[in-house]
């Protein structure tokens, strides 16, 4: 079976460094990255990832908007999207699910839970 591909989206280099290391060292999944919502939409179209893990607060286009756009487009409509953010308030979580995300987790990420969540979507 071909390696599963994850699109990691965050404007923080630190978050991308950590998420990428977690995924690549502790799973067989492959990573591609983007640093804002617009780039995420482009990469989702061109790379056809198996899942998108996306920050919410980003320049150019935030995670909510990018999530909505991906849901509108035929090619990216069915890709599972996990939003990852520091904002844990109820109204943010609600906005996340309204934008079409499948899951919503808060920073700082618990590595074990993060990998388990990815496995639940992608398999071992």
């Amino acid at each position, binding site marked *: 079976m071909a390696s599963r591909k994850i699109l990691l989206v965050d404007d*923080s280099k*630190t978050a991308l460094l950590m998420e990428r*290391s977690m995924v690549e060292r502790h799973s067989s999944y492959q990573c591609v990255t983007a640093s804002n919502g617009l780039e995420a939409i482009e990469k989702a179209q061109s790379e056809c990832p198996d899942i998108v893990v996306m920050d919410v607060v980003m320049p150019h286009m935030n995670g909510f908007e990018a999530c909505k756009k991906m849901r509108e487009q035929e090619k990216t409509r069915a890709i599972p999207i996990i939003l990852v953010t*520091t904002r*844990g308030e109820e109204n943010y979580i609600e906005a996340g699910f309204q934008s079409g995300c499948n899951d919503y987790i808060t*920073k*700082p990420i618990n*590595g074990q839970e993060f990998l388990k969540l990815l496995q639940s979507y992608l398999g071992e």
Partner: protein
Amino acid sequence: MTKHTPIIEKKFRRFLGDANEALMANLRAGRNRTPHLVDVVIEAARERLRESLDAAETLEAIREIASNLLGCENMVLLCIDRKTGAFYPFWSFGIDAAKRSMMEALEEPASYCAALGSTYIARDLEDQSASRQHPRVTVFVPIRYQGEIKAVLALLQFLPQKLGIDMIDNEIFRILSEEAGSMLFPEDAGAAASGSPERQS
């Protein structure tokens, strides 16, 4: 381990008491993070700091590390004036460090942190209602350059979902303490490189 004098200890005893209580409560609360992923988090922090080429990038790296790895979006970097020994706000994020009341609240525990020479965790002074199990804390991290403490990073008002300070956090505090200073104090680097014993202020 403690380097402070008895006079300093007496002056800051009330802070030390709070720190111990808060630290123990938070260590208990923070044990749920995953030991085998510790290295990944710590290396991300170290790599991010080491790839920063100047003070502006280092400050951005500190902000990112605090926000993404520690769960804190409010911080102040208090530098120590070389002539007077007083603290002044060098940079802040999320809060107004220029407010007199803010500096007054931070100065004493920051002084204690600098005297102690290690990370110091204090219960938030305004936190009267928080539970004993998850008290809100402010963390003070000494920022060193060439072994000397040049500044103290105060991390305030951690995110609500951040329930405790754990061993990973302590490692990140250590990395910030040891590695953030090298690009923040370029005039010191210049003085050190030229072999001058008198550094510019």
